[in-house]
């Protein structure tokens, strides 16, 4: 019996969290008749898209032993840049989309430079960006939201092709797969683990640690930009308050998925499971009409339990 449990824990890198996710789904299916349906599964996928896109970038950041607190604010800056370029700048929307994503990437590059050249700890550099990018997001329109996107833009999030897949969801899925392949099979991706394990050793082994750092934060910023565009499509508007405290949900998802905040450990599979755990929890608790205050307690407890299961599981194995 014990051997069985032990084997289950060894099921890939995301084994523990994956079992947790399945358990959650079973519990919600029993507790709510509305949970287990194709439509609800699509709702969940739709609700986690933005968080998922952010978590892809955060996974790389946490693997190299960093942290990115700025993603929620950078998302807001990108979503406001998008609306502002379209409405006040007169740019065609496709161009504005590209520029908004690049604006997010720009924020990431600045974080990367502050960390590598400026020698700031990642926590401090991205904390500064958290504040700065939020301010920029507000300045663009003096704190007002922007509406008036064309129909085709909001359809990116609302129209489900082949009956289930919206464009924003597909973007998330494609990015997740690319991230998984890169981290798992490309030398560049494997290098990130080496940097997170011991950056000095990695440097001596010939890995360009500084450059990799800048790339990783730029990548996280770019993805925050993509998430900002996806959120604008989902809400059919741009709001400067968007993404408030999303960085915490994102970090929680990555950590639930088995990544270690001290670096060198984690993976895309685990992160996606973590994202689903948070999405399923929120959705299931809403379906059960649980008050948002109780939801906060439950989510806190799940974060603690998930990480505990993971570390205890690893210790038994080791």
């Amino acid at each position, binding site marked *: 019996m014990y051997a069985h449990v032990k084997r289950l824990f060894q099921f890939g890198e995301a084994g523990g969290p994956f079992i947790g996710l399945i358990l959650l789904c079973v519990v919600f299916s029993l507790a709510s008749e*509305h949970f287990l349906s194709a*439509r609800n599964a699509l709702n969940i996928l739709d*609700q986690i898209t933005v968080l998922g896109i952010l978590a892809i970038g955060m996974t790389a950041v946490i693997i190299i032993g960093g942290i990115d607190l700025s993603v929620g604010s950078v998302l807001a800056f990108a979503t406001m840049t998008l609306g502002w370029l379209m409405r006040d700048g007169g740019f065609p929307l496709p161009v504005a989309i590209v520029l908004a994503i690049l604006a997010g990437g720009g924020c990431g590059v600045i974080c990367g430079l502050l960390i590598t050249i400026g020698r700031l700890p990642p926590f401090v550099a991205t904390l500064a960006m958290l504040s700065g990018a939020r301010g920029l997001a507000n300045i663009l329109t003096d*704190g007002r939201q922007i509406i008036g996107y064309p129909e085709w833009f909001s359809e990116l*999030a609302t129209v489900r092709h082949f009956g289930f897949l919206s464009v924003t969801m597909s973007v998330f899925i494609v990015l997740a797969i690319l991230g998984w392949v890169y981290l798992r099979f490309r030398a560049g991706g494997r290098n990130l683990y080496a940097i997170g394990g011991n950056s000095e050793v990695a440097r001596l082994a010939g890995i360009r640690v500084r450059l990799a750092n800048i790339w990783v934060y730029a990548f996280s910023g770019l993805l925050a930009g993509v998430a900002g565009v996806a959120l604008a499509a989902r809400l059919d508007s741009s709001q400067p308050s*968007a993404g408030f405290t999303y960085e915490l949900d994102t970090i929680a998802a990555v950590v639930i998925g088995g990544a270690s905040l001290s670096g060198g450990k984690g993976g895309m599979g685990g992160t996606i499971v973590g994202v689903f755990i948070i999405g399923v929890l929120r959705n299931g608790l*809403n379906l059960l009409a649980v*008050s948002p*205050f109780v939801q906060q307690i439950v989510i806190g407890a799940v974060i603690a339990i998930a990480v505990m299961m993971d570390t205890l599981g690893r210790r038994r194995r080791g």
Partner: protein
Amino acid sequence: MFKKFIMAATVASLPLASSVQAHDQKYTIGLAVANLQADFFNFIKESAEEEGDRLGYEIITVDAGGDSAKQVSQIQDLITREVDALIYIPAGATAADVPVRAAKKAGIPVVNVDRNTQSPPGDTFIATDSEEAARILGEYVAEVTGGKGVVGVVQGQLGTTPEIARDTGFEKALANYPGLNTVEKQASKGWHHDEGVSIGQDLLQRNPDINVIFGRADALAMGAAQAVRLANVSHDVLVVGFDGDREGLIAVKQGRLAATMTQQTKLMGRLAVRFAVDLIENRFVPAEMLLDATLTTKENVDRFIEVHP
């Protein structure tokens, strides 16, 4: 009835009060706003500043960004700057009394807007009669649905005055229609648009028969309307909001929202400044001034978009 009378009397005396301002006394009025991210507060701030400009007073505006602790510090700073009066729009779930106490101790009169404090209350209090407005909205829903329907509510932040008043008023109207019932409610954490989408989806998942959704604020209602679009439900869903902010009104015009209750936010800002001056100059000011909100549908939305009341 008596309250209405006082209201009429005060409004009638307003032109008089402002014409008295011909003398060149310069007052400084502190304006502590709850959260400038919300259009509702932004309108109040803009109109208060315009009124200050027009009458020749200096308005010092501070924004708490929804954080009541931050607001307490900001008001302390305003008191230190020796403002002549304070206009206080409380941030957070409940109105903090501390700033009012501190201002009174310093001899500064306080005009509370939107939410009143308990002990002590402001020297005067200006707000929308939310309960009555929500009741009118409930009657509208009953009229459109013929008194039959399954209502889902995307609630605001639990425990806040607007959430409680809008709930009470709306349910008061629905109580008259046995075929029209609120079956599902789910609260948002902070009145946000994106919460409206997710909660709207989950409400429809919980009960696919829902054919009326009341978003307790326009942002929540617009989110819920988006959720209805996503859900592809076969029947019509009537989505109504509350506040009449800029985007809410446009949503009504486009038909995404069936109706909203437009609050007289600009009037609130103007009144706040005039009452502040009246208090400084020791004139009579009513303890409470409740303003009407107007049911806004496609028929009458244009004039509110043109000039916000």
